[in-house]
């Protein structure tokens, strides 16, 4: 499942979202806004998304994950809008019977989000705002 939200991400709710009786492991990745880029002091980050396409691509990623690893539950939450330093921007939580599957699937999902999902971020610095250079889709 994939959610896009303008509200702060509650990690305990994310974990509850994937907790499962038959799973002995939950791998969780949490992405947060850091205070520096390339020599710039970052004071905040703005995120925007093409929701409809992002949901379709996350469905594809979830399907790929389930072909590669035996996982129980899959949840990705991405925040959009204006975020402050240290705010949580993304959470990936995956439950599985064993940790190996959960770790593998979680890492794969996060890397795929970076390269494939239409979400954009803009660093807010004292000198102005700059779109972060990313990955061209399909490249």
């Amino acid at each position, binding site marked *: 499942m994939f959610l896009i939200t303008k509200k702060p991400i509650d990690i305990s709710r994310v974990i509850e979202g994937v907790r499962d009786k038959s799973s002995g492991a939950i791998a969780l990745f949490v992405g947060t806004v850091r205070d520096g880029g390339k020599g710039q002091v970052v004071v905040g980050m703005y995120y925007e998304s093409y929701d409809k396409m992002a949901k379709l691509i996350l469905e594809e990623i979830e399907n790929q994950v389930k072909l590669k690893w035996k996982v129980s539950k899959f949840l990705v939450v991405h925040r959009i809008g204006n975020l402050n330093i240290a705010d949580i921007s993304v959470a990936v939580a995956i439950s599985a019977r064993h940790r190996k599957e959960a770790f593998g699937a979680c890492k794969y999902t996060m890397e795929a989000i970076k390269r494939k999902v239409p979400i954009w971020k803009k660093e807010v610095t004292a000198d102005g705002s700059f779109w972060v250079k990313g*990955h061209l*889709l399909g490249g």
Partner: protein
Amino acid sequence: MVQEDQLSVKRLRVKLFGNLREIVGKKEIRIKFNPPDMSLSEVISIILEYYPNLSRTTVPYIVSINQKIATKSAKINANDEVAFLPPVSGG
């Protein structure tokens, strides 16, 4: 019998994101749609003509039709949703 929607001018929705949205100054533009066989490259040419800032930009982008990455030779229908997508940077 002529249906009502054939009498009205159809307009295609084109969405813009990230720095391309800022360059154009709009989240969405609508262009007059000329059926039946308009290609994506024709749609792109019309938009670049109306928005010279977009044609001058060095920001790379791809274009999608109905949330799927499309080739320039793809044909467009009036109800399609076209989007200009600069490099993504989620996470």
